[in-house]
């Protein structure tokens, strides 16, 4: 990360981070996220993560608008992650901490990981989602 955001003392220590410019173009990708995002440097993040704007976007917008670090816990692409969006003069640094991964090997592992996901998300702000999901989760073994 070349950004001033890198020098922020409140930046999480994880190696999973990306820096976005004011138009959400990827200007830097940390080594830990190279496999996932490295090939899209210079591209608009949303062009390569379908449906992600509605999930990540509010956190990014709040950080930019407030000029303060904003933390959120979200679910996207089978994972619950804690995002920390840190605004700086040359971009928005977004740090990612992976909390829970959906395990779809069997119905048992699916149900177990859904329970963990529900627990982590339940500890956060209420999340809008499909009303069929809670009943479905209970129906699994």
């Amino acid at each position, binding site marked *: 990360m070349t950004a001033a955001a890198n020098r922020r003392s409140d930046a999480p220590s994880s190696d999973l981070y990306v820096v976005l410019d004011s138009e959400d173009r990827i200007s830097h990708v940390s080594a830990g996220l190279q496999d996932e995002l490295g090939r899209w440097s210079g591209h608009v993040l949303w062009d390569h993560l*379908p*449906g992600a704007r*509605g*999930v990540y976007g509010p956190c990014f917008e709040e950080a930019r608008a407030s000029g303060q670090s904003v933390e959120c816990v979200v*679910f*996207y*692409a*089978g994972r619950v992650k804690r995002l920390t969006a840190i605004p700086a003069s040359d971009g928005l640094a977004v740090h990612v901490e992976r909390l829970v991964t*959906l395990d*779809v*090997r*069997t*119905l048992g*592992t*699916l149900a177990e990981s*859904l329970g963990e996901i529900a627990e982590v*998300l339940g500890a956060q702000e209420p*999340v809008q*989602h*499909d*009303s*069929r*999901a809670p*009943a*479905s*989760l209970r*129906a*699994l073994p």
Partner: protein
Amino acid sequence: MAVTVMQSPFIVLDEEYTIVEVGPSAEGGFGPLAGQNLWECFPGSECLFRPYYEKARRSGQPEEFVQFYNGHVARIRAEPQGDLLALYWEQLHVIDALTLDALGASIARTIELLDHEQAVALRQETRSSLHVIKGGA
């Protein structure tokens, strides 16, 4: 049980559950599988699938069922062919975990498919039992 369209075997197994033939759809999705043990290729699947395969071998009749494994809901037909067992595979649904909304809908669909299959199997079993009872009366 529903008659399904599964034209070419997904894989063919010998008595030891070694994969002896691989269909194009299996090879395309999983790479080279021939010569490997089925349960080693698909960890955690033995308890889910083996009872159906054993039943097919014992009875000498095809066994068809719907199972969830590795994010997929699939209809499988196990067809005994001498000492071999041919498996035909039809994908019915894949878990969509992109967003929470998509995941909720996808799980609902998964449960719907599995519930439907369970109901079909129960009806089939009841019909068979009734047939036996009537035959014995």
